[in-house]
């Protein structure tokens, strides 16, 4: 060590064995990912772990009273609280309505718009535009269109002799309205994913099938649909997860009403945490939501594996 200090130029040489190329690359690698990693730890993993602890306590934000209550929050939600099961039911209805409708429409649009033709970019843009439109603007405009008698939707229906319902004021119609408007907003994203998948299918397959005498439906059923399966699975998983997490749309269009008809899980959690300031209870509900989404994802992955074997 002493000899090192005698000449400044030799300082680097002894260090070289430690800082091998491999080490250097490792350090550089960590440095490159560190911004994301630090963000992930502080803003994602940290809160995620904290939620587990919060869910075991009764914590009133305003008075800062915190009591450890074990699993009482979970017990209350699952066995005592009738609203909770209505909320779960609403979330399931929302997902069951939204996912198939969204996927069917996305696939239909993708089939129509995957191949180039005059104006295809225009149509793709039209259907994708709502995805990048502000959710607030989207919800407010639809709320306006879906007014009782004065709303544009009902006035259009009236011209063909249909007496439209008061969409956002009747529980079942309100649910239908939020599902359909949500599908219209988000379908463009899945459409793009399907278009990408369709374009990656070599045209040879289709042509070979056609030469063998397959009908259009058979080509779709036997060639295209199986090749789209990985994309379909991904779309199904992300759309289902997204539908369980829906919040902004409900908050803006119905506020969970009428008669709690559109009170879905994410909105209910928001209400508990940010209107009632029951952070512990809200955290327990968030954990339940996490488990539901995780379970759905696992089930879908298993189904996919069974399907491919």
């Amino acid at each position, binding site marked *: 060590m002493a000899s090192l200090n005698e000449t400044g130029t030799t300082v680097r040489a002894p260090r070289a064995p430690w800082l091998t190329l491999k080490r250097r690359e490792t350090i550089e690698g960590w440095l490159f990912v560190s911004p994301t990693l630090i963000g992930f730890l502080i803003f994602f993993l940290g809160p995620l772990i904290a939620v587990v602890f919060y869910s075991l306590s009764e914590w009133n934000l*305003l008075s800062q009273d915190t009591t450890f209550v074990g699993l009482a929050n979970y017990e209350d939600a699952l066995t005592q609280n009738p609203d909770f099961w209505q909320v779960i039911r609403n979330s399931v209805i929302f997902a069951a309505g939204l996912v198939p409708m969204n996927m069917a429409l996305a696939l239909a649009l993708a089939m129509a718009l995957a191949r180039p033709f005059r104006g295809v970019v225009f149509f793709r843009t039209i259907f994708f535009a709502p995805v990048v439109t502000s959710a607030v603007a989207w919800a407010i405009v639809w709320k306006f269109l879906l007014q*009782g008698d004065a709303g544009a939707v009902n006035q259009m229906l009236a011209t063909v002799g249909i007496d439209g319902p008061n969409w956002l*004021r009747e529980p079942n119609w309100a649910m239908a309205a939020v599902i359909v408007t949500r599908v219209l907003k988000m379908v463009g994203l899945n459409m793009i994913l399907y278009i990408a998948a369709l374009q990656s299918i070599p045209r040879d397959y289709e042509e070979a099938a056609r030469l063998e005498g397959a009908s259009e439906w058979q080509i779709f059923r036997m060639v295209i649909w199986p090749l789209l399966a990985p994309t379909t699975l991904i779309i199904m998983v992300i759309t289902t997860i997204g539908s369980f997490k829906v919040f902004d749309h409900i908050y803006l269009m119905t506020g969970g*009403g009428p008669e709690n008809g559109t009170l879905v899980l994410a909105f209910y959690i928001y209400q508990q945490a940010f*209107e*009632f300031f029951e952070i512990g209870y809200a955290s327990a509900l968030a954990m339940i939501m996490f488990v539901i989404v995780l379970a759905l994802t696992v089930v879908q992955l298993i189904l996919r594996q069974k399907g491919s074997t």
Partner: protein
Amino acid sequence: MKKGGLTMTRQGLFAAGVAASALLAGGASAQELRFTVWTGNDAHLEMLNGIAEGFRESHPDVTVRFETIPAGDYTQKLTFQIAGGNPPDLGWMFEDSIPAFIAAGVVEDIGPALRETEGYDLDDFSGPAMDLWSDGDAVYGIPFSTSPFMVFYNKDMFEAAGLEDPLAMVEAGEWTMEAFRDAALKLTEANDAWGFEFKDGEGYDSRIMHAIMPPIRAYGGHAWQDGECGFDDPKAVEAVTILHDMIFEDQSIVPPGEQGDFFSGSAAMTVNQISRASKMPEAGFAWGIAPLPTGPAGAAPIIGQAGISVFAQGDNKELATEFAAFMTNAENVEVMAQFFPPARASVLDSDAFIDANELIPAEQMAHVSDAIKQGSVLPSHENAPKILAAMKPRFDALFRADADVPATLAAVCAAIQDEL
């Protein structure tokens, strides 16, 4: 290593420099009070800054910074500031959130300090006005706005319907719920407009209490009292039935799911506070304000309140209390009366208040003054957010054409009883 060490030292020096210059710039004795409000209105802020400027005469080193948080997020953001250990020194408080803040112990009792303040005269604030903000001798806030709900009406539409002016009906003692219902129906028939719109068109959502409480109180009913729900009481049922009939039989009230707007001329009457008169010059029609219609229980004016509180976790509680006292002394209450009707009896009776609002004629302001003196505040409760959330779905069911009013109101009571 050496290089690193050097950088560290440099950073250290820099930090020390910043800290030193901050100290120098701040001066040793300068203090800042942070005061949260929900108004972003320039005229309001100018007035508030003017009051803060006046405070500097006695406290030259104190600056007051008014921080606007929009009303819709106000209680939520304030709660998070307090929970996050960063409370403001003072803040405006809504009537519906103060009980929960008192119960949680986050607002300071400033009663003793106010009583010791020379010339303050706490008793000048009327008893009913202080009800919500005090508990025995403890005072957790001072109402700066005690604003009754008044009927705003479109004079042109009343004329078109051949109806007598509501103020004339008030004089004759005929401005009753029946007269109001009758007027709403005739206004709907005579004009291409709704007869009546609930406050801000939100009567089925965030303003349910503003929609139902005026008739319920006029009929002698109440929302809840001493832990007992009053919505299923026959008086309340009778009052709500009238509203229901007006919406669905007469079709004279803007129904749920529709948008009507008094200020743009699509409804002939609405209920609001006098601060909304600021919207009237652009309205383009003749208008007036009248008291709420009376019922079998007589006149039952309803007041919306907002107060000023000092937060218990603030660093400058004493100074903040001094500023609260200064802001609500007789002189400044008079200043604020141009926008916010006062709860000080001395100001309420003064010509200064009657003439304070240049948009509203003195004789109409006299009705405002009467309503403040006789009125009672909207129902409040420390569990208000949960009660309102539990009520909401049942009231959604009430505001349907085929609703069974008594049964639905009984369901409202069943839903909120636990929280009361």
